[in-house]
């Protein structure tokens, strides 16, 4: 009897031309490879020393300037020059400073269901939201994918995450993924594929799916995969790529290493405490925890839907005294749409600081670095010690609603209190 396949096995079978099963090592065709400005310069140097010489598919190779955009230091500006020169000479696509975060632009402009995507950034997993086997690698691996158009993979075992029930008011996809990581741990899915199914997933919009896939790596996973369905089709039509749609799902008799069931109806606003993502608590349990900075944006929660939620909570109000509110839309497209919808005006009137589309303060490289002893609640994906520019500071992670509610009170706040 032939046993069915998981999404990871299906995609890697197709791209390797083999009957790929969990545990196999395969060589798979890479449909898109990319780097960003902090991993790109090393990738370019490794590519040049590899002797390969030419890009396998320049039109499916992208360099993003998003982490230090615009550049805060001359050395980083010089790295940007190196990347622009490489793009010109090699013929690959360049996404400039101000265009946005790679993990937002890849779903908007490039990723297709069933693609294999490798990026020199751990949150490359984001594109799993639309059914692409997308995973982060280092500069050497991506340099080789640039040149050969393929790479090796160990086909991962899969955890099936079955989410049923209804999300309650004030509870979002971000709360679900933080809950899951808290439950299984920061290494709970190391080397695994997380595959999301169930009634609550079928009803979830693409923005929520991308948020969840984005954080799969925070449980150690290689990929976070969603079936490609009507929601995927609608998203691709909206971004002008309807022809890139294809339906894709796991076989009903696929083999899973384990199944984790979550009742969305029982989830509550959830927060990761310093200094690990799996150190979760309910937002209401952290009442009284003061914050000096609130960050809304990043590749995890910088989409239009996220800004809409935050703007609704902040509209006509001001942050508590002593709180800095920072908003960083994930892409130029998101910023333009948020302008048209009036969200940007709302944030500015609420005392917010609008940063250019990009990574914002998430990785401590520029803009919004924390001071000694300060605490921040951010909609980003990582709260490691030192992450936001200072090892003596404290980062909490939550949904856009939790972050916006916390801005109003100056302490971590369950958004249901202000909705």
């Amino acid at each position, binding site marked *: 009897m032939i046993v069915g396949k998981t999404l990871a096995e299906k995609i890697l079978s197709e791209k390797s031309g083999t009957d790929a099963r969990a545990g196999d090592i395969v060589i798979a065709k890479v449909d898109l490879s990319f780097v960003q400005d902090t991993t790109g310069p090393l990738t370019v140097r490794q590519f040049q020393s590899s002797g390969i010489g030419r890009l396998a598919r320049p039109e499916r190779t992208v360099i993003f300037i998003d982490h230090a955009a615009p550049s805060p230091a001359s050395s980083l500006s010089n790295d940007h020059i190196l990347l622009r020169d490489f793009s010109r000479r090699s013929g690959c696509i360049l996404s400039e400073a101000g265009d946005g975060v790679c993990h937002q632009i890849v779903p908007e402009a490039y990723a297709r269901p069933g693609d294999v995507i490798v990026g020199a950034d751990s949150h490359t997993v984001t594109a799993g939201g639309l059914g692409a086997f997308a995973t982060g690698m280092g500069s050497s691996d991506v340099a080789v994918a640039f040149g050969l158009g393929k790479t090796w993979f160990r086909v991962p075992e899969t955890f099936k995450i079955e989410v049923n029930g209804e999300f309650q008011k004030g509870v979002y996809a971000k709360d679900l993924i933080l809950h899951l990581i808290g439950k299984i741990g920061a*290494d709970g899915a190391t080397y695994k594929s997380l595959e999301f199914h169930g009634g609550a997933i079928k009803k979830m919009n693409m923005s929520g799916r991308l948020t969840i896939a984005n954080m799969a790596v925070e449980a150690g996973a290689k990929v976070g995969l969603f079936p490609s369905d009507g929601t995927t089709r609608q998203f691709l039509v909206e971004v002008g790529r309807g022809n890139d749609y294809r339906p894709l799902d796991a076989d009903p008799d696929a083999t899973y290493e384990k199944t984790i069931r979550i009742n969305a109806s029982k989830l509550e606003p959830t927060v990761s405490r310093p200094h690990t993502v799996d150190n979760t608590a309910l937002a209401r349990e952290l009442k009284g925890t003061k914050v000096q900075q609130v960050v809304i944006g990043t590749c995890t929660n910088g989409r239009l839907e996220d800004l809409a939620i935050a703007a609704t909570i902040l509209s006509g109000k001001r942050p508590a005294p002593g709180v800095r509110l920072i908003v960083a839309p994930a892409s130029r497209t998101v910023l333009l749409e948020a302008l048209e919808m009036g969200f940007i005006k709302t944030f500015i009137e609420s005392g917010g600081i609008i940063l250019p589309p990009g990574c914002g303060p998430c990785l401590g*490289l520029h803009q919004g670095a924390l001071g000694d002893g300060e605490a921040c609640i951010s909609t980003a994906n990582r709260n490691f010690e030192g992450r936001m520019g200072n090892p003596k500071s404290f980062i909490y992670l939550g949904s856009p609603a939790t972050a916006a509610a916390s801005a109003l009170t100056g302490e971590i706040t369950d958004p249901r209190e202000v909705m």
Partner: protein
Amino acid sequence: MLKGRAHKFGDGISTDHIIPGRYAHLRSNLPELAKHVLEDADPAFVSKVRPGDFIVGGSNFGLGSSREHAPLVIKMAGVSAILAKSVARIFFRNAINLGLPVLICDTTKIDDGDELEVDLAAGTVRDKTNGSLLTFGKIPEVMLRILNEGGLIAYIQKHGDIRV
């Protein structure tokens, strides 16, 4: 046979501990970048480490970012291998791609400063300080071939292609 002293770290040493994002402006200046290796986990590490020494971690070593600079600055510090109970996926691939062995074994009994001898072929770690002998898990064949060529780029320079 690799010989050196153990530098012991706890669980969950992230790539931000190893080389934080705030030093991204030094990524094209590796000698300067390397001065900050593991600064947020042990500020004294860079002054203590000697060529040939080992980093001994707990679980989920190297979690976080895909920055290959993390294993790169560890290698530049002269570390001959990383021993850990478990290691994050991207870090594992990156270290092997740079020719830096990562060995999965139960590091509980190794103390900071212990004298270690690692036999890569035999798959053993001898702790000469406490007399114990540990075995480490096999590195997958495809990664062993990359490691034996001194890293992925050296492998590609020689073979021009990847095979499994």
